[in-house]
């Protein structure tokens, strides 16, 4: 089954979409089957219930019970490879 990954930012239309596109492409290149979806922070609570991983482009001050990853790394590319490896470790066996 494809892993479900949620990306959230303040609006759900700029940084989170950009990060979602990037992550989607990177996972595909590594042969990982995943649905990556961008949402706004206010819809996060709704979407996160069915998600396997959360990539945050906003501050995280809550425990959602699923692994959380640093979206800024995917946005700027700094620390991206390390974050991608961690993400793949978390979703590859789903």
């Amino acid at each position: 089954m494809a892993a479900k990954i949620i990306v959230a930012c303040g609006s759900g239309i700029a940084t989170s979409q950009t990060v979602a596109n990037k992550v989607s492409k990177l996972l595909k290149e590594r042969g990982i089957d995943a649905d990556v979806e961008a949402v706004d922070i206010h819809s996060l609570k709704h979407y996160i219930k069915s998600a396997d991983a959360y990539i945050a482009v906003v501050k995280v001050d809550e425990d959602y019970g699923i692994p959380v990853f640093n979206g800024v790394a995917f946005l700027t590319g700094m620390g991206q490879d390390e974050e991608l490896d961690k993400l793949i470790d978390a979703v590859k066996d789903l």
Partner: protein
Amino acid sequence: MPSPDASLFKPELVFFDLAAPSAPELFDALYERLAPMGYVRESWPSAIKEREASYPTGLLTPGGPIAIPHVDPEHIERPYIAVVKPPRPVTFEFMAGMGDPVAAELVINLGITRDGGQVQVLQALMDLFGDAESVADIMAQTTGEGMVSAIVSRFGG
């Protein structure tokens, strides 16, 4: 992915003379330029200050410290991208609290709508800021025409 819409960048939307001691004051100064040109609505200054306070946009990129402030589309009259190179760096909080505040040397204000084009532009900008040589060229620009050309000539490659 389609090429980014380079027409969003315009020489008259590049500002070198917006001196401000803080991000909110920079937004006020930027509003004074954008509003007469019909890009933003009256609600824009308070909306962008509030957004930046809740969801900051300072970033440390391989090319240097920048900020990419933006607000929801309802405060935008028509799509634009403004490029501000302030005389002195302006402090922005780091996006998602992932680091210390950054002294942004370039502020790129995304006047975005829901048409989808902003993703291509933001991705192209981030690719560009991953390349130190491109950024050195951008930071060396002193005219609006030069800045637009330095940025969009590297798009779509």
